[in-house]
């Protein structure tokens, strides 16, 4: 996967994860253009399209569009499953997730994504394991444990 974008029906970006090195300017341009293209598509159309020289896979869940750009050799149908898995994870975590959850807790949405995908590929195929890892990490945050590195102060 090269990048994943989440955006609303008004074209507002809610999450952008880039797995290829591009400047801020380039990212903005790509986001803007791609969002326009997808929003212009009719509801009955295919979830896949060729855009510039990329394969785009997108799906709409309620008011949010989930859009991925994948490589030529990637399987589009399984990418749809990846998107669906991510939505399920968000849903489990937030409890019936809606767009507002992602707006107000965007950093958590990123953390969950980073436990599911790494470098554009799935790192964990078990829903349970992803959620467990997030839970544990959140715990570390809440209890505010001060972490000590392996240097002992005498």
């Amino acid at each position, binding site marked *: 996967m090269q990048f994943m974008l989440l955006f609303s029906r008004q074209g507002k970006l809610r999450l952008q994860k880039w797995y290829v090195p591009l400047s801020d300017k380039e990212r903005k341009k790509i986001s803007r253009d791609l969002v326009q293209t997808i929003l212009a598509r*009719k509801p009955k159309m295919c979830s896949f399209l060729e855009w510039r020289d990329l394969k785009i896979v997108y799906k709409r869940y309620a008011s949010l569009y989930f859009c991925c750009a994948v490589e030529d050799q990637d399987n589009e149908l399984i990418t749809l*499953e990846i998107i669906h898995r991510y939505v399920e994870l968000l849903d489990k975590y937030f409890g019936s997730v809606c767009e507002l959850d992602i*707006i107000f807790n965007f950093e958590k949405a990123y953390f969950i994504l980073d436990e599911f995908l790494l470098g554009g590929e799935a790192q*964990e195929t078990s829903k349970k394991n992803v959620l467990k890892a997030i839970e544990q990490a959140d715990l570390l*945050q809440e209890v505010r444990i001060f972490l000590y590195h*392996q240097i002992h102060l005498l």
Partner: protein
Amino acid sequence: MPAPIRLRELIRTIRTARTQAEEREMIQKECAAIRSSFREEDNTYRCRNVAKLLYMHMLGYPAHFGQLECLKLIASQKFTDKRIGYLGAMLLLDERQDVHLLMTNCIKNDLNHSTQYVQGLALCTLGCMGSSEMCRDLAGEVEKLLKTSNSYLRKKAALCAVHVIRKVPELMEMFLPATKNLLSEKNHGVLHTSVVLLTEMCERSPDMLAHFRKNEKLVPQLVRILKNLIMSGYSPEHDVSGISDPFLQVRILRLLRILGRSDDDSSEAMNDILAQVATNTETSKNVGNAILYETVLTIMDIKSESGLRVLAINILGRFLLNNDKNIRYVALTSLLKTVQTDHNAVQRHRSTIVDCLKDLDVSIKRRAMELSFALVNGNNIRGMMKELLYFLDSCDPEFKADCASGVFLAAEKYAPSKRWHIDTIMRVLTTAGSYVRDDSVPNLIQLITNSVEMHAYTVQRLYKALLDDISQQPLVQVASWCIGEYGDLLVSGQCEEEEPIQVTEDEVLDVLEGLLVSNLSTPVTRGYSLTAIMKLSTRFTSVNRIKKVVSIYGSSIDVELQQRAVEYNALFKKYDHMRPALLERMPIMEKSASNGPTEIVQTNGETEPSVEPKHPPPVTQPANQANDLLDLLGGNDVVPVIQTTMPTKPASAGGELLDLLGDLSLSGGPAPAPAPSVPTSQPPFLLDGLSSQPLFNDIAAAAIPPMTAYNKNGLKIDFTFERANPNPNIAVITIHASNSTEADMTDFVFQAAVPKTFQLQLLSPSSNVVPALNQGTVTQVIRVLNPQKQQLRMRIKLTYTLKGSPVQDLAEVNNFPPQSWQ
């Protein structure tokens, strides 16, 4: 200083803004607060501030001043700080900035941290945006973690290694030992990421691929894992709609594909499992279809037995009938990939594919169109063409050009009859005429010319099409050309194929003249029309009308039209006896490759010599002019030009020209006796007039750039170059003299002299009047023989009369482009 507001508070506030301006104001205020907080090196709230900055960055506002702060957060000991810090790094930094290199040390430390979630953060960040330098520095740490027994870290290390290999391919070797027992893991996360890592290695290096095939016996291991996934019972942890870990299954199938490609043994070892997956996978949900799709791709790519291939294509055939358009799309894509190798199998699904042309989705339509063209053959051409033409009628403009080209190609290959072919072309021109590619026009003209028995039918149909619609330029151009050629057949009502129409010469000329004046016609089209009208002067009886039209356009503002008209006029006035021969029917053209125009022109060039004897004798140059030049120049280093005297008797074939050049002596004496008759080629314009190929002029230039040789007192002389076939030592220079003053330059004479090692031949000029205000050019051809490939130099002398007074000038031309004499 009060505590900075919380992240959620800020988000809430910003969302209350009613206008863009209001939002911008809030953001600017908050940014200022954050900036001062950063300046104060506030450790407590740095995390909160950076988080807010990230939110504002997502809205599109600049956040670069937070980059260093992210690094400070990463270096902090608090987990919350690290989490936000790494997130910020991934969002705000990219490898183009130097700042990110400062992260390397932090990441190194964190890779060795005692808490696995910190290690995880570091691995994730490195694997997402690590630059080549960072990867080089930290590859060792990643490799270490790849061997750990902690599956949480191992899976992340595997994907991090993938990123390292992508960035620094030379490091691939160092990860090889660690891959030894990756596949014996039970943990699916590790299995999945390991398969991704192995795939990356096999794709990048054929040596690795061979190693994994033979030494590691990867295929049996993968087959075993896949089998377990399919056969094992329900596993709640990995189940998706009744299928166990589809993500892993798909990745394994993809790796099998790479291992089985061009390798018989591997392919055989996986035959059974592929058949099993293909037949047993549940197809009611997208998940199952995703696995089937991957299976089909693998079967088609490895050396599978034919039974398996047929199974795969049938799966695709079933996909085509699926209600889900995503599945149909994927099927069409796959069929397109396999149509070359398994043509017959795909043919069986032709009707379903053709139905997809009517689909509402653009991507599906495009795929279906490409696939349809791939399936056209001699047997199904009539039926397929009907469908494709119907598609052409109704499709979106973005498809029309490609579809039209496809139709032409298919028609050319498989046309069952000439009439069918021409009908098909007519249909395309009338329905999608404006989208047809430029090179189609000459190709079609060639096709029509060669279908001799269809001339009457073709011209009749084209004429009728013109009556309906003159807006589609390719159609109009082809039609004008045909009417010009076959107008006699049109008015004589000779059509066999269909009911002949009754049309008079005047009606035909009305239509052609209509094209000339219409706003819809492009200059190129007008050129076609004028030439067509001219040709009809030998086929129709109403010559006077044609003469009138031609003379009117002699003063057209369009230089091309004007030139043509002037020359046609000359044809009427001075060389009327030449006219029938010049304008006679075009011969059958050589069948050319895609370089249609070039070939046609060359053929014309070859047939020209037979017509040359009828070329009008140009103005003869008095012999003593050579003497004048010598006197003028004095020095011995320049040889006078030998000007040809025009023959009054018929010329012979073009080959003698070269002989002549060989015969010319280089003595400094006065003008030589007239050499054996030289068939001079008229300046290109007449050829242009005959062939009506607007591209002809472009061919002449080839690769040598034109130059301006002289530009003074309103007289400008440009040189254009081409190489003469077959002798590459001869450069053919065409001079173009134009006059930007208000009065004509009459009695214009151009003379040239070259150094001793060259030989020069000056052919007759097109005229000796250079019209005022750049309304036309005088052209003249110079042939320069340069056997020693020396640098070309030339002295030119110009004489003309302007407003009654004679003008004379000498000039040196030294700025010849190197390509003209090398």
